[in-house]
């Protein structure tokens, strides 16, 4: 067990993967300087500029070229800097990378990790704050991961690099410096949720930074005598329907909370799945928490209005219990 930050955890995972497999490499803008948040600090020194590749500001080419290199036998880790800029490479990701294996009848593979830091972070405004995980879940061919802790950011990054599918890997910008114990022997099984807290009264489903808020909310709820179960999905595709359904069958209550816009968010998928498959187990109204369908503004007070807060989660949980 080592104590490290969220950013250090995925950096270590990348480093170990690169040490273990010479075909693993990183590609993106300013990687030699560590990229925007230090995710690659020191890696170019260790592995050289041919394996930690600085690129032009060409998101379409970064994504497309990494895909081409993947098809001939390398395993690229693609850095998009802010998930927002990845939109400049949407054709490459959605029409090419996600579809190639199927379209070519299984001839090609795209073992790639596509890193897109997400989330609201310090007055960055509408073009640097998006979380579009639900988009990628909707695209067959893609795996979608949202680690929320240093441990998961280590283990899941390792598993993502080892995976032969294209993986959209969404780190949250607001928790780079989050500290935690990391056991480097733990191997993530992608698609399995993390039970962050066991409880009997209400099931709270979440992922990414919001999952951490839910753990805090559960502590507050406990003080009020409500025993919440907190499930951090961490993998949105595939996602751990089993754990969620079992939990709801136990508690009969459901709150889903995420940072991204509620309308069309993955929270809808979770609620709809529960309604379809365990609707009869529900003993109270469900609550879905996400951002209003507005944009993230620059001014801090306006930015705050787009956030799902601990208090909102507490209130939501109580509402499912009719309290």
């Amino acid at each position, binding site marked *: 067990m080592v104590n490290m930050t969220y950013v250090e955890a995925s950096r270590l995972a990348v480093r170990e993967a690169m040490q273990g497999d010479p*075909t693993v490499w990183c590609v993106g803008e300013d990687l030699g300087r560590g990229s925007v948040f230090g995710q690659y600090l020191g890696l170019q020194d260790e592995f050289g500029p041919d394996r930690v590749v600085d690129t032009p500001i060409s998101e*379409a*080419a970064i994504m497309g070229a990494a*895909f081409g*290199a993947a*098809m001939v036998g390398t395993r690229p880790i693609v850095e998009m800097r802010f998930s927002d800029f990845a939109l400049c490479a949407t054709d490459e990701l959605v029409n090419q990378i996600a579809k190639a*294996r199927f379209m*070519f009848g299984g001839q090609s593979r795209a073992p790639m990790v596509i890193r897109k830091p997400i989330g609201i972070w310090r007055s960055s405004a509408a073009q640097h704050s998006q979380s579009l995980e639900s988009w990628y879940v909707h695209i067959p*061919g893609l795996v979608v991961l949202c680690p929320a802790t240093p441990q998961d950011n280590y283990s899941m990054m390792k598993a993502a690099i080892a995976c032969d599918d294209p993986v959209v890997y969404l780190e949250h910008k607001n928790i780079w410096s989050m500290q935690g114990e990391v056991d480097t022997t733990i191997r993530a099984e992608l698609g399995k949720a993390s039970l962050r807290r066991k409880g009997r009264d209400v099931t709270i489903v979440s992922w990414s930074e919001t999952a951490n808020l839910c753990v805090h909310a559960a502590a507050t709820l406990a003080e009020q005598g409500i025993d919440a179960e907190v499930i951090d999905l961490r993998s949105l595709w595939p996602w751990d329907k089993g754990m969620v359904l079992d939990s709801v069958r136990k508690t009969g209550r459901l709150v889903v909370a995420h940072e991204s816009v509620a309308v069309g968010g993955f929270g809808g998928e979770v609620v709809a799945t529960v309604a379809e498959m365990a609707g009869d187990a529900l003993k109270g109204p469900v609550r879905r928490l996400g951002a209003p369908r507005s944009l993230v503004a620059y001014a801090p007070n306006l930015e705050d209005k787009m956030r799902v807060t601990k208090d909102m989660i507490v209130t939501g949980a109580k509402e499912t219990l009719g309290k």
Partner: protein
Amino acid sequence: MDKSHNTQTARDLLVMMERIRAFEEQAILAAERDNLVLGAIHPSIGQEACAAGIMTHFNRDDILLSTHRGHGHTLAKGADPLAMMRELLGRTGGCCGGKGGSMHIADFGVGMLGANGVVGANITIAAGAAHGLKMLGKSAIVVDIFGDGAANRGPFLEGINWASVFDLPILFVCEDNQYSATTKTSAMTGGPGVAARAEALGLRATVVDGNDAEAVARTTHEITTRLRAGGGPEFLHAITYRQTGHTSFDPASYRPDGEAEKSIADNDPIARQRAVLGAMGLDRAALKAIHDMAQAEMVQVLADASATPFPGDETAFTDVQDLGSPVQEAR
């Protein structure tokens, strides 16, 4: 080069062009006469000299990426025409198992990493393939062929700049048939032309008569020699003409009167190559034999392909992904 060598090469070029044309003629029949090809096909009739000439100098372990108009390139790279025709008919044994169709034809076994339904998208992907090969220390080289219309898409700049910056072993070919679907491309393309664009991105660029198979092959040979010797990325602007409509369904009535007729009469690459071989001494009978052999091959290919069953329904859900595949989900 001695004359016999020249004749053999010239003959090979004609054979390949005849095969490509025969393949596409059969494909068009399959589409229009037989209703067997359900999606769109984009024939390269009139453009065969590019496919034949370029691929002469790429080996099986070299990499090709192409476009929606890629039958010729694929065949010339060495793909099996029966597997290709089955793909056009969406049948089992098609090179993509019937999942891709004409627009997504690919044969990884011969280094053909895919046509593409998105104009220009392969330019960055091809640059990346070259990047990967270089990283892995492989000696293979890459060729990416795209149309004149693709030169107006962003990936043209990003992909070619990428190859330039990373000094990659790749040849970009603009196979310029002068049309982007129903539009004359020149009206939509600013500046002196695609070669100038490539030069401005740092590539050596060559312009060639794309209906002269000999010239295309010769020029490609010079370029691939430099590429294999470690030279940087290059660009070839091959000027040709699309004798058909954009798709097999398109009557192409937007073309100026007589334009296509004139090109077919005076500038057909197969006729020109026949003349080259005629000048080298091949007689009409020999030329006819080449033509007939190609025709017979592709008639049989279509017959065989039509006799093949559709893929098993279960393949609708295979080869999507390992994790969370629809097959797993259905369990």
